[in-house]
Protein backbone atom coordinates (compact mmCIF):
# COMPACT_ATOMS: atom_id res chain seq x y z
CA UNK A 1 0.00 0.00 0.00
CA UNK A 2 1.16 3.54 -0.74
CA UNK A 3 3.24 4.67 2.24
CA UNK A 4 1.87 8.18 1.74
CA UNK A 5 -1.46 6.89 3.06
CA UNK A 6 0.31 6.50 6.41
CA UNK A 7 2.88 9.30 6.39
CA UNK A 8 0.32 11.98 5.76
CA UNK A 9 -1.10 11.50 9.26
CA UNK A 10 2.28 12.17 10.89
CA UNK A 11 2.69 15.33 8.83
CA UNK A 12 -0.84 16.51 9.72
CA UNK A 13 -0.32 15.76 13.43
CA UNK A 14 2.88 17.80 13.54
CA UNK A 15 1.36 20.67 11.58
CA UNK A 16 -1.90 20.86 13.59
CA UNK A 17 -0.17 20.62 16.98
CA UNK A 18 2.25 23.34 15.94
CA UNK A 19 -0.50 25.56 14.59
CA UNK A 20 -2.96 25.17 17.45
CA UNK A 21 -0.59 24.85 20.40
CA UNK A 22 2.66 26.27 19.09
CA UNK A 23 4.21 23.01 20.20
CA UNK A 24 6.93 21.15 18.32
CA UNK A 25 6.78 17.39 17.96
CA UNK A 26 10.25 15.87 17.68
CA UNK A 27 10.55 12.60 15.79
CA UNK A 28 7.43 11.09 14.22
CA UNK A 29 9.44 10.60 11.05
CA UNK A 30 9.45 6.81 10.88
CA UNK A 31 6.76 4.15 10.91
CA UNK A 32 6.94 0.77 12.59
CA UNK A 33 4.55 -2.15 12.33
CA UNK A 34 2.44 -2.97 15.39
CA UNK A 35 2.08 -6.68 15.74
CA UNK A 36 0.19 -7.02 18.99
CA UNK A 37 -1.88 -5.05 21.41
CA UNK A 38 -1.20 -1.39 22.02
CA UNK A 39 -0.72 -0.30 25.62
CA UNK A 40 -2.17 3.16 26.00
CA UNK A 41 0.21 5.76 27.43
CA UNK A 42 -2.70 7.46 29.22
CA UNK A 43 -5.31 8.99 26.93
CA UNK A 44 -6.17 7.49 23.56
CA UNK A 45 -8.56 8.49 20.86
CA UNK A 46 -9.77 6.45 17.88
CA UNK A 47 -11.36 7.81 14.75
CA UNK A 48 -12.47 5.78 11.76
CA UNK A 49 -12.91 6.86 8.16
CA UNK A 50 -14.54 5.18 5.21
CA UNK A 51 -14.76 5.80 1.48
CA UNK A 52 -13.12 3.82 -1.29
CA UNK A 53 -11.06 2.29 1.56
CA UNK A 54 -11.66 1.99 5.30
CA UNK A 55 -9.15 2.98 7.93
CA UNK A 56 -8.62 4.46 11.34
CA UNK A 57 -6.29 6.65 13.31
CA UNK A 58 -5.43 6.16 16.96
CA UNK A 59 -3.80 9.08 18.78
CA UNK A 60 -2.20 8.11 22.07
CA UNK A 61 -0.89 10.69 24.55
CA UNK A 62 0.90 10.70 27.86
CA UNK A 63 -1.34 12.22 30.56
CA UNK A 64 0.93 15.26 30.93
CA UNK A 65 0.55 16.07 27.24
CA UNK A 66 -3.22 15.52 27.27
CA UNK A 67 -3.53 17.94 30.20
CA UNK A 68 -1.23 20.48 28.53
CA UNK A 69 -3.32 20.41 25.36
CA UNK A 70 -6.60 20.87 27.24
CA UNK A 71 -5.24 23.58 29.54
CA UNK A 72 -3.68 25.51 26.65
CA UNK A 73 -6.66 25.30 24.32
CA UNK A 74 -9.33 25.90 26.95
CA UNK A 75 -7.38 28.33 29.18
CA UNK A 76 -8.20 26.41 32.35
CA UNK A 77 -6.22 24.40 34.88
CA UNK A 78 -7.38 20.80 34.64
CA UNK A 79 -5.46 18.24 36.66
CA UNK A 80 -7.55 15.10 36.05
CA UNK A 81 -7.32 13.38 32.70
CA UNK A 82 -10.73 11.81 33.31
CA UNK A 83 -12.33 15.23 33.19
CA UNK A 84 -14.77 15.21 30.30
CA UNK A 85 -13.40 18.50 28.93
CA UNK A 86 -9.86 17.09 28.79
CA UNK A 87 -11.03 13.96 26.99
CA UNK A 88 -13.20 15.96 24.60
CA UNK A 89 -10.27 18.23 23.73
CA UNK A 90 -8.07 15.24 22.88
CA UNK A 91 -10.88 13.85 20.78
CA UNK A 92 -11.20 17.16 18.96
CA UNK A 93 -7.48 17.24 18.17
CA UNK A 94 -7.82 13.79 16.63
CA UNK A 95 -10.81 15.01 14.64
CA UNK A 96 -8.89 17.99 13.27
CA UNK A 97 -5.76 15.97 12.45
CA UNK A 98 -7.80 13.29 10.69
CA UNK A 99 -9.89 15.89 8.88
CA UNK A 100 -6.73 17.57 7.59
CA UNK A 101 -5.16 14.27 6.52
CA UNK A 102 -8.20 12.81 4.78
CA UNK A 103 -8.90 16.08 2.95
CA UNK A 104 -5.40 15.84 1.49
CA UNK A 105 -5.92 12.18 0.63
CA UNK A 106 -9.28 12.91 -0.98
CA UNK A 107 -7.76 15.72 -3.03
CA UNK A 108 -4.81 13.61 -4.13
CA UNK A 109 -6.38 10.19 -4.62
CA UNK A 110 -10.15 10.94 -4.88
CA UNK A 111 -10.81 8.42 -2.12
CA UNK A 112 -14.15 9.95 -1.01
CA UNK A 113 -13.23 9.42 2.65
CA UNK A 114 -15.43 10.74 5.43
CA UNK A 115 -14.88 10.70 9.15
CA UNK A 116 -16.97 9.22 11.91
CA UNK A 117 -16.66 11.28 15.10
CA UNK A 118 -13.89 10.07 17.39
CA UNK A 119 -14.12 8.26 20.68
CA UNK A 120 -11.64 8.85 23.45
CA UNK A 121 -10.81 6.77 26.46
CA UNK A 122 -8.59 6.62 29.48
CA UNK A 123 -8.04 4.25 32.38
CA UNK A 124 -5.47 2.29 34.26
CA UNK A 125 -3.26 -0.03 32.17
CA UNK A 126 -5.55 0.33 29.19
CA UNK A 127 -4.82 -1.99 26.29
CA UNK A 128 -6.16 -1.52 22.78
CA UNK A 129 -6.41 -4.59 20.58
CA UNK A 130 -7.51 -4.42 16.96
CA UNK A 131 -7.39 -8.02 15.86
CA UNK A 132 -8.64 -7.69 12.32
CA UNK A 133 -6.33 -5.03 10.99
CA UNK A 134 -2.58 -4.46 10.70
CA UNK A 135 -1.21 -1.09 11.58
CA UNK A 136 1.82 1.17 11.63
CA UNK A 137 2.85 3.44 14.51
CA UNK A 138 4.91 6.58 14.67
CA UNK A 139 6.25 8.11 17.90
CA UNK A 140 6.99 11.70 18.73
CA UNK A 141 8.08 13.68 21.74
CA UNK A 142 7.19 17.17 22.94
CA UNK A 143 8.32 19.29 25.87
CA UNK A 144 5.14 18.13 27.66
CA UNK A 145 5.14 14.42 26.99
CA UNK A 146 5.09 11.72 24.36
CA UNK A 147 2.64 11.18 21.54
CA UNK A 148 2.09 8.16 19.33
CA UNK A 149 -0.11 7.87 16.29
CA UNK A 150 -1.18 4.51 14.90
CA UNK A 151 -2.68 4.24 11.44
CA UNK A 152 -4.44 1.27 9.90
CA UNK A 153 -6.03 0.68 6.54
CA UNK A 154 -8.13 -2.36 5.83
CA UNK A 155 -6.39 -4.34 3.18
CA UNK A 156 -3.16 -4.09 5.13
CA UNK A 157 0.24 -2.55 5.08
CA UNK A 158 1.59 -4.00 1.88
Amino acid at each position, binding site marked *: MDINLYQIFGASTKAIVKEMLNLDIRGMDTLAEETGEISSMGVSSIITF*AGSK*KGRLLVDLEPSLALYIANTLLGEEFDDIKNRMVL*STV*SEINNIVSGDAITKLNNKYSMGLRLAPPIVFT*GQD*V*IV*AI*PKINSLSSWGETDHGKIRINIAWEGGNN
Partner: protein
Amino acid sequence: MTDMDIEKIADFFTESLRQVLSTMAGFEISHVACDQLNASTDNPIIMGAMVLHGKKDAIISLSMEKDTAAMIIAYMTGILPRELKEQDLFDGVAELVNIMAGEVKARLSNTPHHFLLTSPFSLGGTNFKMVQKKNLLETCRHLKAGEMDITFRIAYI
Protein backbone atom coordinates in the same frame (compact mmCIF):
# COMPACT_ATOMS: atom_id res chain seq x y z
CA MET B 1 -33.25 8.49 13.40
CA THR B 2 -35.65 8.73 16.32
CA ASP B 3 -35.64 7.44 19.91
CA MET B 4 -37.96 4.70 18.76
CA ASP B 5 -35.63 3.68 15.90
CA ILE B 6 -32.59 3.41 18.14
CA GLU B 7 -34.49 1.33 20.70
CA LYS B 8 -35.65 -1.01 17.96
CA ILE B 9 -32.12 -1.30 16.55
CA ALA B 10 -30.72 -1.92 20.05
CA ASP B 11 -33.24 -4.74 20.39
CA PHE B 12 -31.97 -6.25 17.12
CA PHE B 13 -28.42 -6.26 18.51
CA THR B 14 -29.59 -7.71 21.81
CA GLU B 15 -31.49 -10.44 19.99
CA SER B 16 -28.45 -11.17 17.85
CA LEU B 17 -26.21 -11.40 20.92
CA ARG B 18 -28.72 -13.68 22.61
CA GLN B 19 -28.58 -15.93 19.59
CA VAL B 20 -24.76 -15.87 19.39
CA LEU B 21 -24.33 -16.75 23.06
CA SER B 22 -27.03 -19.40 22.99
CA THR B 23 -25.74 -21.03 19.79
CA MET B 24 -22.02 -20.86 20.41
CA ALA B 25 -21.69 -20.93 24.19
CA GLY B 26 -24.95 -22.46 25.38
CA PHE B 27 -25.76 -19.44 27.56
CA GLU B 28 -29.25 -18.10 27.89
CA ILE B 29 -29.33 -14.39 28.52
CA SER B 30 -32.08 -12.22 29.84
CA HIS B 31 -32.11 -8.49 29.83
CA VAL B 32 -32.88 -6.04 32.53
CA ALA B 33 -33.32 -2.29 32.35
CA CYS B 34 -30.14 -0.39 31.68
CA ASP B 35 -29.99 2.78 33.74
CA GLN B 36 -26.24 3.00 34.03
CA LEU B 37 -24.91 4.43 30.80
CA ASN B 38 -21.88 5.71 32.64
CA ALA B 39 -21.52 3.00 35.25
CA SER B 40 -17.99 2.11 36.25
CA THR B 41 -16.42 -0.78 38.10
CA ASP B 42 -13.10 -1.25 39.84
CA ASN B 43 -12.66 -4.70 38.30
CA PRO B 44 -10.75 -5.12 35.06
CA ILE B 45 -13.09 -4.93 32.12
CA ILE B 46 -12.88 -5.78 28.46
CA MET B 47 -14.88 -3.86 25.92
CA GLY B 48 -15.34 -4.87 22.31
CA ALA B 49 -16.47 -2.10 19.99
CA MET B 50 -17.14 -1.30 16.36
CA VAL B 51 -17.93 1.83 14.41
CA LEU B 52 -20.79 1.36 11.97
CA HIS B 53 -20.79 3.56 8.88
CA GLY B 54 -24.27 4.39 7.68
CA LYS B 55 -26.38 7.41 6.78
CA LYS B 56 -25.69 8.27 10.40
CA ASP B 57 -22.59 6.69 11.93
CA ALA B 58 -22.86 4.73 15.14
CA ILE B 59 -20.62 3.04 17.63
CA ILE B 60 -21.61 -0.17 19.36
CA SER B 61 -19.86 -1.68 22.33
CA LEU B 62 -20.10 -4.74 24.50
CA SER B 63 -18.46 -4.54 27.91
CA MET B 64 -18.00 -7.12 30.59
CA GLU B 65 -15.65 -7.97 33.40
CA LYS B 66 -12.56 -9.88 32.36
CA ASP B 67 -13.71 -13.00 34.22
CA THR B 68 -17.01 -12.95 32.34
CA ALA B 69 -15.17 -12.67 29.02
CA ALA B 70 -13.00 -15.64 30.02
CA MET B 71 -16.06 -17.72 30.90
CA ILE B 72 -17.84 -16.92 27.62
CA ILE B 73 -14.77 -17.59 25.46
CA ALA B 74 -14.11 -20.80 27.41
CA TYR B 75 -17.60 -22.10 26.67
CA MET B 76 -17.29 -21.10 23.02
CA THR B 77 -13.92 -22.72 22.45
CA GLY B 78 -14.01 -25.60 24.93
CA ILE B 79 -10.77 -24.34 26.48
CA LEU B 80 -10.54 -23.88 30.26
CA PRO B 81 -10.68 -20.22 31.35
CA ARG B 82 -7.29 -20.45 33.08
CA GLU B 83 -5.70 -21.65 29.85
CA LEU B 84 -6.92 -18.66 27.87
CA LYS B 85 -4.42 -15.87 27.31
CA GLU B 86 -5.33 -12.20 27.57
CA GLN B 87 -4.95 -11.96 23.78
CA ASP B 88 -7.62 -14.65 23.40
CA LEU B 89 -10.04 -12.58 25.46
CA PHE B 90 -9.45 -9.40 23.44
CA ASP B 91 -9.80 -11.34 20.22
CA GLY B 92 -12.86 -13.23 21.43
CA VAL B 93 -14.79 -10.17 22.58
CA ALA B 94 -13.98 -8.36 19.32
CA GLU B 95 -15.21 -11.39 17.37
CA LEU B 96 -18.44 -11.46 19.40
CA VAL B 97 -19.06 -7.87 18.34
CA ASN B 98 -18.21 -8.78 14.76
CA ILE B 99 -20.61 -11.72 14.62
CA MET B 100 -23.38 -9.74 16.30
CA ALA B 101 -22.92 -6.76 13.95
CA GLY B 102 -22.76 -9.02 10.87
CA GLU B 103 -26.14 -10.49 11.69
CA VAL B 104 -27.78 -7.09 12.27
CA LYS B 105 -26.15 -5.68 9.11
CA ALA B 106 -27.90 -8.34 7.03
CA ARG B 107 -31.16 -7.67 8.85
CA LEU B 108 -31.01 -3.93 8.19
CA SER B 109 -29.86 -4.13 4.57
CA ASN B 110 -32.45 -2.54 2.27
CA THR B 111 -33.70 -0.34 5.12
CA PRO B 112 -32.82 3.32 5.78
CA HIS B 113 -30.68 2.16 8.70
CA HIS B 114 -28.33 -0.08 6.69
CA PHE B 115 -24.65 0.21 7.59
CA LEU B 116 -21.17 -1.00 6.72
CA LEU B 117 -19.03 -2.88 9.22
CA THR B 118 -15.57 -1.68 10.22
CA SER B 119 -12.85 -3.57 12.04
CA PRO B 120 -13.88 -4.35 15.60
CA PHE B 121 -11.48 -3.45 18.37
CA SER B 122 -11.14 -4.24 22.05
CA LEU B 123 -10.14 -2.13 24.99
CA GLY B 124 -9.17 -3.46 28.37
CA GLY B 125 -8.21 -1.93 31.67
CA THR B 126 -9.49 -0.77 35.01
CA ASN B 127 -11.11 2.50 36.02
CA PHE B 128 -12.02 2.84 32.45
CA LYS B 129 -13.70 5.89 30.98
CA MET B 130 -14.83 6.38 27.42
CA VAL B 131 -16.25 9.60 26.01
CA GLN B 132 -17.91 10.43 22.72
CA LYS B 133 -19.21 13.80 21.70
CA LYS B 134 -22.13 15.24 23.66
CA ASN B 135 -25.82 15.11 22.75
CA LEU B 136 -25.63 11.66 21.29
CA LEU B 137 -28.64 9.59 20.57
CA GLU B 138 -27.71 6.59 22.66
CA THR B 139 -29.17 3.70 24.55
CA CYS B 140 -28.03 0.57 26.32
CA ARG B 141 -29.10 -2.89 27.35
CA HIS B 142 -27.99 -4.66 30.46
CA LEU B 143 -27.81 -8.40 29.91
CA LYS B 144 -27.50 -11.17 32.43
CA ALA B 145 -26.43 -14.77 31.94
CA GLY B 146 -26.53 -16.39 35.37
CA GLU B 147 -24.16 -14.34 37.52
CA MET B 148 -22.54 -12.72 34.52
CA ASP B 149 -23.28 -9.17 33.45
CA ILE B 150 -22.81 -7.77 29.97
CA THR B 151 -23.60 -4.25 28.86
CA PHE B 152 -24.43 -3.40 25.26
CA ARG B 153 -24.39 0.22 24.16
CA ILE B 154 -25.18 1.92 20.89
CA ALA B 155 -24.67 5.60 20.16
CA TYR B 156 -25.43 7.45 16.95
CA ILE B 157 -22.72 10.02 16.44
